[in-house]
């Protein structure tokens, strides 16, 4: 029976709250179907504090096997490298996370904070991800870290991580289904697609019909800082809460699956050079893109430019 330990660090609990929303199967059925024994999860178990300490000691002594360690939230290293901004049993929680990781068959980072550091990467909180600090390999565990099954940390990026990505990853790990990881150790199954793909506003992008004012339907990429064509993620393929996505609703994608999230420059604005975005859709040539967009805008049908469409 595979065991799971879910550890929360410096975060908002949003990956857990989002995971509670998982569908088909929903959470009780998922645990049951996979036969997962939850050793500890702050919101899902009834382990008393004393029991929890005994359990942790048994895991660290290799008496209780740990199959899957899930970490949520950034690993806090401040102040001055001591880790005392975030403590567990009076000691830096990061040391506990590192010790658990070395006993786990698989280590999963749920959310961008645990994967890459996210909002905690600054010079005071001094947070890091498990195996990356933003784009730089290393993090808490070091570039060469491999869990007992020989895997690097599996990074389920997103702020929060999509619940189906968590359930899909757990399913694959329990069933031994191979997961191909990208250069940031995110499973390509869910991050090998652009957030843009599946966005209901794709046709606006195609013909460069731009949203300049909120509520004025159009593509958010050219003025509103949308990262949909720039980052990988399943938001518009899986959809959120079964219904929609930020970009469909008119909220720009902020690129939260990227190790660079949050960006140091303003959200809601597209950095541009003479009207052409500085950051172009992944893998595209600037000169070709400019020629294509100029022609596309000229070819835009009136039903789009006059916003007669219902998306």
């Amino acid at each position: 029976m595979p065991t799971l330990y879910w550890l929360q660090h410096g975060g908002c609990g949003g990956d857990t709250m989002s995971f509670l929303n998982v569908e088909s199967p929903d959470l009780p059925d998922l645990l049951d179907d996979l036969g997962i024994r939850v050793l500890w999860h702050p919101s899902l178990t009834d382990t008393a504090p004393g029991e929890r300490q005994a359990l942790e000691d048994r895991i660290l002594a290799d008496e209780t096997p740990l199959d899957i360690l899930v970490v949520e939230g950034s690993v806090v290293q401040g102040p001055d490298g001591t880790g005392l901004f975030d403590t567990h049993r009076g000691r830096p929680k990061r040391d506990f996370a590192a010790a658990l990781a070395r006993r786990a068959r698989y280590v999963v980072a749920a959310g961008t904070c645990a994967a890459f550091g996210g909002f905690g990467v600054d010079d005071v909180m001094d947070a890091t991800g498990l195996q990356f600090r933003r784009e730089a390999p290393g993090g808490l565990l070091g570039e060469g870290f491999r869990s007992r099954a020989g895997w690097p940390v599996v990074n389920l990026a997103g702020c929060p991580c999509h619940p189906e990505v968590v359930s899909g990853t757990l399913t694959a790990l329990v069933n031994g289904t191979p997961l191909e990881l990208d250069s940031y150790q995110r499973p390509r199954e869910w991050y090998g697609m652009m957030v843009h793909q599946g966005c209901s506003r794709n046709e606006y992008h195609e013909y460069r019909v731009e949203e300049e004012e909120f509520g004025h339907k159009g593509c958010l990429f050219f003025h509103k800082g949308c990262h949909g064509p720039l980052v990988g993620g399943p938001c518009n393929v899986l959809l959120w809460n079964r219904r929609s996505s930020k970009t469909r609703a008119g909220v720009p994608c902020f690129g939260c699956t990227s190790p660079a999230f949050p960006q140091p420059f303003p959200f809601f604005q597209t950095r541009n050079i003479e009207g052409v975005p500085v950051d172009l859709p992944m893998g595209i040539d600037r000169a070709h893109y400019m020629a294509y967009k100029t022609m596309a805008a000229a070819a835009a049908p009136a039903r789009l430019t006059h916003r007669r469409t219902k998306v």
Partner: protein
Amino acid sequence: MGGKRIHCDVPLNRVEGDLEVRVAVENDRVAEAWSRGTLFRGFERMLVDRAPMDSLVVTPRICGICSTTHLAAAARALDQVAGVTPPDNAIRMRNAALMAEQIQSDLRQSLLMFMVDFANSAYADHSLADEARRRYAPVGGQHHPPGARSVAAVRETKHILELVALVGGQWPHTSFMVPGGVVYKAEPRSLQQGRHIVKALRRWYEDQVLGCSLERWAAVRSVADLDAWLAESAAHRESDAGFLMRFGREAGLDRLGAGPGTFLSYGNLPLPAETAVAGRAGRFVPAGFARGADTGPFHEGHIAEHTAFSWYQGDPGGHHPWSGRTEPLMEDGGERYSWAKAPRYRGAPAETGPLAERILAGDGLFTDWVGRDGPNVLARQLARLTRPATLFGPLEAWLEETLAALTPDESTAQQAQRPIMSPASS
């Protein structure tokens, strides 16, 4: 006394494991207690030097169970800066998302994070212990199969969040509220779907959580009414609210947790200019401050955060958050023991949350109860579990009103009249 003094650290970690209460026990009584935040996150510092609109992305990340509430706070601050009032439909859409999130939060907190403890072996001698385990044992627990009500709570509560996704794209962590309104252009198909979603959860809430209609519950206006309601039918007694009362009274939860005896509400859910929903001073949830049942006005200028016992630099006296500083100061020994600042109103603590809201709204049941017995854990928890009963009506009304007010080309977004400059462009 000569009694033995024992220290015990009690983590409170069902959402966000960063609060711990250290208690000193002498002669089987808690002699002293320290409420300790065990994590420094520094959100106050994250917005410094960022563009004002970035607060719509950063602030929600404070909390994964109430991110929409933090978004609303950031959006209202920007409304104030820009000097704009959102149009009615945008107010309704903001409120709808806030209410959906709050209903989710109240139900998850009550069933998954509070009543789950009724299934704990610490209550093994309680006459309802077996039933409590069958109902509320946790979904991933080691000791018992998942409780039927815990499983139902997981299955049902997520659906109301679909409403947030329909208006804001996703839950948690959307940024759909912007200065002057929302980014969303209301579409009838989404509003209609939203209405169905609300009705479905309301049906489950009435049937299982209350065991009666919202109207029947609204007629409970005193402790005597509550007792009559409990006696009236098995459906009432078997509901989550009925079980909470029966279990809680035997466990003595109505004699625990007095708190400071003062209540504060900032007020919430601003009313649109045109609406059938009633409120006070422009809000559905009224603002106010109360000592016991003696209510009066609330002035936000009286809020201060103290750091005498928190690991922060600066003088120990309180500062309004407007002028507060967040400079961590880790020191060994000394009197500081927490990363949480101590919020105070006129220099003293005050209770916030559903019970405070009900008292300040003049609710009959909770005013009567607290007037008799003082604030207590059971009243506080019943106030939370039954807060959704106050929200379903206005939520349905605002969805209806939005639909009725839609014109073919109406946009609910209104740009700020004055531009908000970002540091990068100034």
